[in-house]
């Protein structure tokens, strides 16, 4: 079965600090995708990134970067120079192969203190 673990429930940082969110996953599939979503206080889910298991290259998008380590089944997310607008819950998610029903982790609540 698919399982996603986000161990840190709430993380508080001071503005401009970096914050890294850990995501560890379990899957029996050899081919799979991993997602990160952001849920700000307004409640909507914002898609951030999708990576497939073929591609272990790290990715950077502005202040966001992702570190995919297949050997340790981790897909960690770093926000550099955090801003107050980054305050949100961040979810890591994993769909079973051939199935589009996303299994979500419990989420990381990020609080950026001005």
């Amino acid at each position: 079965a698919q399982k996603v673990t986000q161990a840190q429930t709430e993380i508080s940082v001071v503005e401009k600090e970096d914050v890294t969110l850990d995501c560890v996953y379990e899957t029996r599939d050899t081919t799979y995708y991993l997602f990160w979503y952001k849920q700000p206080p307004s409640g909507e889910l914002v898609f951030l990134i999708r990576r497939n298991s073929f591609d272990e290259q790290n990715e950077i998008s502005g202040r966001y970067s992702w570190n995919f380590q297949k050997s340790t089944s981790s897909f960690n997310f770093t926000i550099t120079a955090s801003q107050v607008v980054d305050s949100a819950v961040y979810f890591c998610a994993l769909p079973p192969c051939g199935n589009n029903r996303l299994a979500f982790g419990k989420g990381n609540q990020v609080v950026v203190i001005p």
Partner: protein
Amino acid sequence: SAVISQKPSRDICQRGTSLTIQCQVDSQVTMMFWYRQQPGQSLTLIATANQGSEATYESGFVIDKFPISRPNLTFSTLTVSNMSPEDSSIYLCSVLGQQGSSYEQYFGPGTRLTVT
């Protein structure tokens, strides 16, 4: 990408009543899903809404409690029946939409339900 709207955006209901949530997508999509997010919790899939046939429910969710309709490829409804305070949650509609040569899962803005 797909643009998804949900109605109502929020509601406060008395226990024992039912609420129907609508999900409208701006394009035809094959797969639509309904998720629940209880306060402070992660998202849990309720069911896959199938066009032209009965929805496929996940473990712990039943049709009598959460009847779903999917009359066409752009619209679905979720009804929360005989509500109790435990049903207070955000209910999110989600669709699988094509992004270039691949598919992405998009979420509606959610319906925030409070049951008193």
